[in-house]
């Protein structure tokens, strides 16, 4: 593996945003293909971050700084990526449901999905059903991802799924949910397609749903 790619991998793994940007610049200077930088540097690094999180070697702060380093590197790389380089894994509309302002989990899922090659439309927090519906229509999304931290806001997920039904969009999108009070059986109860306990597993669930 090229040294610049190795540096980029390492920068993302340790969460060094400055080094990640410099490594991308260095890789571009020696004319490495942007798609190679993306796939072998960034996506590979974020996959390793996910593995380390699942193994219990990384915790939320480590995952956050890695994801932020990845995003910084990506901001340098993006202008150099051709349309053909961006083989999107799928487009995901993501948000924390209405009445809930908590977003660390949602942001982690969003960044890990981005790091796995998905396109993200992040609606933020306190997102009512009609904004999810609007974003799905507007962006031609493949997946709706919803988060809730509170037991009291979790039922909003069902409201969004019912709204997708009413808007005749339910067959066009997969729905994944997560958040502290959310469980696999709750996902089944409300007719979601997938549930993930953490950001790393959310990537795996999303990939399996779209394959």
């Amino acid at each position, binding site marked *: 593996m090229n040294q610049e790619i190795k540096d980029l991998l390492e920068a993302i793994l340790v*969460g060094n945003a400055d080094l990640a940007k410099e490594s991308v610049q260095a890789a571009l200077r020696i004319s490495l293909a942007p798609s190679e930088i993306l796939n072998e540097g960034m996506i590979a690094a974020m996959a390793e971050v996910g593995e380390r999180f699942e193994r*219990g070697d990384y*915790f*939320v*702060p*480590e995952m*956050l*700084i890695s994801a*932020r380093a990845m995003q910084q590197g990506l901001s340098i790389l993006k202008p150099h990526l051709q349309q053909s380089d961006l083989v999107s894994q799928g487009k995901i509309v993501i948000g924390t449901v*209405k*009445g*809930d*302002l*908590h*977003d*660390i989990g949602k*942001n982690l899922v969003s960044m890990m999905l981005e790091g796995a090659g998905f396109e993200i439309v992040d609606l933020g927090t*306190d997102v009512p059903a009609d904004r999810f519906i609007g974003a799905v229509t507007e962006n031609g999304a493949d997946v709706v991802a919803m988060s809730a931290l*509170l*037991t*009291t*806001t979790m*039922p*909003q997920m069902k409201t969004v799924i019912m709204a997708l039904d009413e808007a005749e969009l339910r067959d066009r999108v997969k729905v994944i949910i997560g958040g*502290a*009070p959310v*469980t696999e059986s709750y996902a089944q109860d409300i007719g979601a397609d997938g549930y993930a*306990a*953490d950001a790393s597993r959310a990537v795996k669930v999303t990939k399996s749903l779209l394959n």
Partner: protein
Amino acid sequence: MDPVLFVEPEYIGPSLPKNTDVFGRGFSEVDYGTGVYKECVHFPLAQYQTLNEIKQNYKWPNPDWWDYSGISDQIKGFEDYPVKGGGSEPFLVYKDLRGHEQAFVDLATHPEIVHFCLEKLFALCYENTVRIYEQIPGNVQLSFVGEDFGSQQMLMYSPNHIREFFIPRMKRMIDLVHKAGAFVFFHSDGAIRDIIPDMVEAGVDVIDPIQWRCEGMDRSELKDSFGDKVIFHGAVDNQYTLAFGTVDEVRQEVVDNINLLGMGGGYIIGPCHNIQPISPPENIIAMYMAGLEYGWT
């Protein structure tokens, strides 16, 4: 059931604009359909990049902004009740000062900011606790020492971070509480099994809330491992059981808790968090009735 009497000083400091507090946090009521939650929406230290900026620009609250003279009156007529007061949970405030995500990131990228701010916040908690104890010597039974360490699956922070940033200050508070003859009520949500040995060693007396559905929080195992050293408090799940379960499921959970956590004593029944408004009233009653029925040994 005797309620715990909570004592606290009266605020007499500078007047505060509406929906703000002594730390400059801004709050907003967020409507979730059947009620409102007050959430922090302004994070006063979020704008700063360095410790120096914080030192130069931020004014910390002063313990003299509170009047402690009324505390002895607060326990009059309640002499037979357990009294709770003082304690610390500085990272809870820190998260609101910096913004929650940045607070997590700071542990890895800005340890100097975390240590400085936690020390300021903790010093305020410590002085508050000392002053409460001085007002009613020997009359406080419980002081709260908390910090949420767990997610549903695992610790949110590495054990190394917990040992560096949190436990040493907790230990100072624990020693103060014990010196005053009170018990330490330790609170941490979530899957915290991996750090419980550290907390027990630090001297906690009660562990709350025992979210047994979380990874590693097996009630029998906890009782076997720590039951001779600590009291368990809480353990009635309100992410599923109280909120969405049946009356039978609630009753069964109470019975299981009493059998598993309470074998030979050492368990105080309660919900794992404030009872959520979507919980059916019959479930709430079932929890307490089952406690009354099966909780006597």
